[in-house]
């Protein structure tokens, strides 16, 4: 009942948004009335001009569009990478739920960022704290410049990246409907407001942090730390999975069900990062070569750094830690990929690889926060490290001021994202509930939340065959449905 209620509210909000969008667009005619004469033929003339006379600017402009959009599509594919990493590092009984969360945070995030987020992040700012126009992509109506589409497409996949980081840390125990609410809020408010402080001037906005000279080229802080600290807040408010900590408080491993899938996810992410970092030029220029090289070197060094650290600490080269190491290197280089030397990238990435292993162990054993996939360490901690390192390894030299501004940015991101999301999760917990019931968690979220399992033909359901208490309702099994049919029919 509660679920239906909150879903209805979500739908209502969306509907209200669409109505509002139409109002914005219909409210415009008075202002666009004068433009219509000149605006309407504009696309025709631009096409005509391109075919009639090829200018250097024209070619450059089109190349900028093509590169920015190809990069956006690469970054979109990172959603698949996150989905694979998260499901690989968690148990088979929650695989459907992880897929649904990764699908839905992109879907919810896209609409939320279109309606609200983009305007807050890149709209004209009156206060200097966030933008106040450009909601529902209304900029195009005003200016008729299609660049806003290319730019929005590139930015929306970034917003969704920040949103999806959180699902891994909150995996295996979060209510689905609560996650939907969270993903709309982070994409509409939490991410864009910080983004406007650091990146607003890339479009119509402007923020206080960038005016100080804050270096975060592709988002170690703006995207990854914001997501990572939100993940930390979520994991703290949720509490650990059942069985993660013994009665003596000692952490127990809950091994993931598919390391090959997790590895595929890391390869996809590494691939997608060639859009994430080099694409952040949002221009087809020669910088992308250095950025790509730095990105790759840092990822390689991060992988090796984590491998060595894990091998020394655990006596064996732990695969999941090494995979986290690749991501640590990538997150680390994201801020400084355009202003450090290749040597700097290798050192920066290697250190990120060491940090991520130490951080996973620290969060697990000392903080006792259950982060099944290491999202807080990879994105939060290594994002912070990468942002500091972007100043430290600055190819044009480093000053105390640069480091100070970098540190200020890192600290601001933590305070903003952690506080905002902590409150958000507390509110969700009080209103609709954040965590599934004990029975549901033991049985697996797939069956109880979504009515089917990821691998119905495999016998990989140890919870049911070995440790399920006899009182556990098995009714879920009989009532299983698949694509609307009950299983007998199917």
């Amino acid at each position, binding site marked *: 009942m509660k679920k239906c209620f909150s879903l209805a509210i979500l739908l209502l909000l969306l509907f209200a948004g669409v109505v509002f969008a139409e109002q914005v667009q219909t409210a415009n005619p008075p202002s666009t009335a004068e433009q219509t004469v000149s605006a309407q033929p504009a696309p025709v003339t631009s096409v005509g001009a391109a075919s009639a006379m090829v200018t250097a600017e024209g070619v450059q402009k089109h190349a900028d569009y093509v590169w920015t959009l190809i990069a956006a599509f690469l970054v979109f594919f990172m959603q698949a990478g996150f989905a694979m990493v998260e499901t690989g590092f968690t148990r088979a009984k929650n695989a459907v739920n992880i897929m649904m969360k990764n699908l839905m945070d992109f879907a919810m995030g896209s609409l939320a960022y279109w309606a609200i987020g983009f305007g807050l992040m890149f709209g004209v700012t009156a206060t200097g704290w966030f933008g106040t126009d450009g909601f529902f992509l209304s900029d195009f109506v005003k200016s008729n410049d299609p660049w806003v589409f290319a730019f929005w497409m590139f930015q929306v996949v970034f917003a969704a990246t920040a949103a999806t980081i959180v699902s891994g840390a909150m995996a295996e125990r979060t209510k689905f409907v609560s996650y939907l609410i969270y993903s709309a809020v982070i994409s509409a408010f939490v991410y864009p407001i910080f983004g406007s402080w650091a990146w607003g001037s890339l479009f119509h906005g402007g923020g206080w942090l960038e005016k100080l000279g804050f270096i975060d080229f592709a988002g170690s802080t703006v995207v990854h730390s914001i997501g990572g600290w939100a993940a930390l807040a979520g994991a703290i408010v949720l509490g650990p999975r059942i069985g993660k900590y013994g009665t003596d408080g000692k952490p127990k491993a809950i091994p993931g069900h598919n390391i090959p899938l997790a590895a595929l996810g890391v390869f996809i992410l590494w691939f997608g990062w060639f859009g994430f970092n080099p694409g952040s030029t949002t221009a087809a220029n020669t910088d992308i070569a250095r950025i790509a090289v730095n990105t790759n070197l840092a990822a390689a060094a991060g992988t090796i750094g984590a491998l060595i650290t894990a091998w020394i600490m655990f006596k*064996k080269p732990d695969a999941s830690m090494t995979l986290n190491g690749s991501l640590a290197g990538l997150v680390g280089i994201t801020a400084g990929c355009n202003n450090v030397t290749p040597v700097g990238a290798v050192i920066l990435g290697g250190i990120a690889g060491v940090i991520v292993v130490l951080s996973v162990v620290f969060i697990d054993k000392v903080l006792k926060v259950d982060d099944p996939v290491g999202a807080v360490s990879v994105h939060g901690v290594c994002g912070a490290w990468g942002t500091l390192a972007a100043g430290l390894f600055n190819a044009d030299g480093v000053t105390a001021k640069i480091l100070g501004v970098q540190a200020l940015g890192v600290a601001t991101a933590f305070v903003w994202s952690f506080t905002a999301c902590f409150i958000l999760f507390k509110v969700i917990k009080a209103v609709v509930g954040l965590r599934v019931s004990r029975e549901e968690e033991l049985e697996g979220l797939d069956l109880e939340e979504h009515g089917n399992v990821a691998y119905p033909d495999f016998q990989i359901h140890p919870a049911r065959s070995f440790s399920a208490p006899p009182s556990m309702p098995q009714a879920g099994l009989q009532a299983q449905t698949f694509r609307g049919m009950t299983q007998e029919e199917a």
Partner: protein
Amino acid sequence: MKKIEAIIKPFKLDEVKDALHEIGVQGMTVSEVKGFGRQKGHVELYRGAEYDISFIPKVKLEVVVPDEMLEKVMSKIGEKAKTGKIGDGKIFVSTLEQITRIRTGEIGEAAI
């Protein structure tokens, strides 16, 4: 008639099967099982945290033989399944009361 149940290491199955086939064992039933013995499983590390593998995967081999073949089959299984390391498994022997081959209705040793 005796029923032999042997718990062995999974990767030894093919070797044991071939050896038993050579000495005239006509059929067997094999199942994948999990269990522990005096070692009580072992501890592994995943992402720096320990976890217990309390039930170790094994293969259970069930063979029914006439009394006179018992010693030979037991020693063959023992010989082929042995690695000398912990976890080689055990062989259990019990007396079997009756067998029926469902297709023909034969009973006793003729049905083995």
